């Protein structure tokens, strides 16, 4: 690695005939490599009554292959100090792992094997199902998770994003092993797979290893991904609360639909969001709710990113007795955010922060690999990091105000919380 930003001159990008794309960037001082990427399918493929099917299928991949049972598979990974994980999101299945550089071919061969040749053993099916159900049961008692689940249901309504990728206890309980096998046969394949790697390996060597492993994977059964249905935002404000009596703290989420990630608005709102609830000790809302009122340890705002619809939201953890007070304070800050431009000082601060953070984002192999994936997923182009400073510099206070007014419609806020019952 050197002090220059990764760009089209230093990033290797290659696409194979099977639809796989590799992005590689060297950090030859590192004895390790980190890789990450995504492929089809995502939870959007789940049928209405089987929420959690895609995620369950992915969880089964790491339980053994036709050649290696659970113990032998994980022994191969852990005995060399490597790691390999997969998980399913709305639109894709993501994977990541790391290993010492001399073990990369071994790990990528195992990655292909677990995706291509999973065993789907009955014993593992029951075990994984129990683990998922236990995870759901724990989530159902988690105020942050329940407030978030209620928020997604309220915001997305009939859109598939309303449902948790992991599914519900009832839907997961009804999934059969044969469904997982069929889902796997018809949805997994190399077409659309993106793999990014950074670390102590020359990009050319990474390309050769990819050619011998992921690049030769063929699948005739992989179907095209489902088209994302249109999203209709809520027409009115929504307020809901999930009662969890035993909890000492309530979690709160307030939000609205976010701009599309691949848009000028998104860049503008990223800067605006930093002022609202990220910069320093969580921006304006951190100052109002935590620093001045002392109501919360955690309060911040988040601008979602993704190919499909996402949310722009505020999250806070507060004492149940202070829930309404916190909502009032946050609404006051949103009113200010949508009625007057941010100050020039605020704008300058978050711009210099965003520009200064660029070198920090390339501090680690994992940070760079994650950037490479974003460049590909959002089609930003390999020179995006070099172009970003000019984009950031061009954003004005008036643009932020206009975007805030466009997205934060205070008459259509979705507010959800979980904790002790509201009296």
């Amino acid at each position: 690695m050197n002090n220059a930003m990764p760009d089209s001159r230093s990033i290797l990008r290659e696409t194979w005939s099977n639809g796989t794309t590799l992005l590689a960037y060297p950090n030859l001082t590192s004895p390790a490599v980190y890789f990450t990427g995504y492929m089809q399918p995502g939870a959007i493929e789940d049928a209405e009554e089987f929420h959690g099917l895609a995620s369950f299928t992915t969880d089964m991949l790491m339980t053994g292959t036709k050649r290696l049972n659970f113990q032998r598979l994980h022994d191969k990974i852990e005995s060399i100090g490597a790691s390999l994980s997969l998980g399913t999101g709305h639109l894709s299945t993501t994977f990541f792992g790391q290993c010492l550089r001399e073990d990369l071919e071994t790990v990528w061969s195992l990655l292909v094997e677990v995706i291509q040749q999973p065993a789907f053993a009955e014993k593992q099916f029951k075990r994984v199902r129990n683990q998922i159900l236990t995870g759901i049961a724990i989530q159902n008692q988690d105020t942050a998770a329940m407030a978030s689940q209620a928020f997604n249901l309220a915001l997305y309504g009939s859109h598939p994003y309303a449902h948790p990728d992991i599914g519900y206890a009832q839907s997961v309980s009804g999934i059969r092993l044969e469904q997982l096998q069929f889902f796997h046969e018809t949805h997994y394949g190399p077409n659309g797979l993106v793999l990014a790697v950074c670390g102590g390996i020359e990009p050319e060597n990474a390309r050769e290893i990819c050619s011998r492993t992921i690049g030769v994977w063929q699948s005739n059964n992989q179907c095209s991904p489902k088209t994302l249905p249109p999203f209709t935002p809520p027409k009115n404000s929504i307020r809901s609360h999930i009662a969890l009596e035993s909890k000492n703290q309530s979690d709160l989420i307030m939000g609205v639909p976010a701009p599309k990630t691949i848009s000028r608005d998104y860049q503008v709102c990223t800067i605006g969001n930093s002022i609202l609830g990220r910069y320093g000790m969580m921006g304006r809302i951190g100052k109002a709710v935590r620093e001045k009122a002392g109501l919360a340890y955690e309060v911040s705002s988040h601008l979602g990113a993704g190919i499909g619809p996402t949310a722009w939201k505020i999250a806070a953890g507060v004492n149940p007795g202070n829930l309404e007070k916190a909502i009032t304070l946050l609404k006051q800050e949103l009113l200010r955010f949508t009625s007057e431009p941010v100050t020039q000082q605020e704008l300058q601060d978050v711009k210099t922060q965003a520009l200064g953070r660029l070198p920090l984002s390339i501090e680690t192999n994992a940070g760079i690999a994650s950037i490479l994936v974003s460049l590909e997923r959002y089609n930003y182009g390999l020179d995006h990091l070099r172009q970003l400073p000019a984009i950031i510099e061009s954003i004005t206070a008036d643009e932020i105000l206009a975007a805030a007014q466009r997205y934060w419609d205070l008459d259509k806020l979705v507010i959800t919380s979980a904790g002790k019952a509201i009296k």
Partner: protein
Amino acid sequence: MPINLNHNLHQVQLNNGLRVMLKEIHTAPVTSTWIWYGSGARNELPGKTGLSHWVEHMQFKGTRKFTGEDIDNLVSRVGGYANAFTSSDWTTYFETMPSAHLHTTLELEADRMVSSLFDPVEVETERTVIISEREGSENYPEFRLDEAVQLRSFLAHPYRNEVLGSKEDLLGITRDDLYQHYRNYYQPANAILCIAGDISPQAVLDDVENLFGGISSGPLTMSIPTPEKKLDTGDLVEMKGPGEAHYLEISWRCPAASDPDFFAYGIIESLLSGPSSLNMFGSGGISNRTSRLYQALVEEDYAASVFGDLSANIDPGVYKVFATIQPEGDPWAALKVIDDQVHRITSRELSVTEIERAIKQARALFAYSSDNITNQAFWMGYASSFADYQWVAEYLTRLGSVTPSQVLRIAQKYLQAEQRVVGVYQATRTQEGS
């Protein structure tokens, strides 16, 4: 390839006692600055638990030179990130910044070593923030169980106390308590300054001398507890409460991190519950699916997950194992399985192959963080807080010298049933959440 952590390392001590450690790493235009104070739960007296952590919060509230907002801006404005942590043994503050702004962080740390204000209004605001932090943790049964087990794991040593402090103490601590604690523990002779990254060592040393050299160290009244003798009767904590999953926690004493026995204990941890990463910042770990406890508990359906944690402390601490038990599962059956596995460890020697495997895993974990400047700066201070930097630099070599007979001896010394505390949280199913 061997990882040489001593490469480009520079260490000096200023006349006022401040230890300074510098490490040149030019892989990215970034520096990470950490300052460590010997102030943690270990130094707190009954009735005043949570003092160290609360002082940490107040260090972001303003000094004679910088307002709280200035402190925020100094780091954020240039794209850096900063935070602080309090543990049983130490409190630490760090800033990772574009390297051109290193002077700013040094100026801030030098100033707040001596001139934080502890404004009474800010103290009161922070009281509710910290109570909110505690209440957020109390939402989780695992936290409540762990706190209860910790209290029983030591009879008098302050390691028994939660770092956040008890709610009762948090309600009673005064501004004077906080300020007195600050003035006593925050001084050069009780601090270690660690800087890693894109630096020129001599220029940085000159800057450090200029900013910190004039701060004098006064008398330090250190509350140093006497390490406790080993437990000679086991203990049991039983809790019941709302929830869906049950939790099981077992805590055994472990040696101080500086004790030669600690490395053999690390091998035991790796084998029983999986290898722990010493990294603090997202450089990843290794899964524990081939560990003996995972195989016996999860693969045999006694638990949904299991993990372990071996603490590296100044005084003898604890090694803990946590298991999450399925709603229809039985924590007592899981405990029996753990007992069987511990019995195996304490009754026969490991193979050399098993030790070699643990070493390879540790080597990989070190390699993963070697590209992370923030971690490298963390390690310098972290190891120096309970031993010295050679503890980290020689970690792999010392693991490599552990023999099967040593592991057996250590297992027999520490993992006996009468030396452990068992905690069981039995969930009472509810109809909540609808």
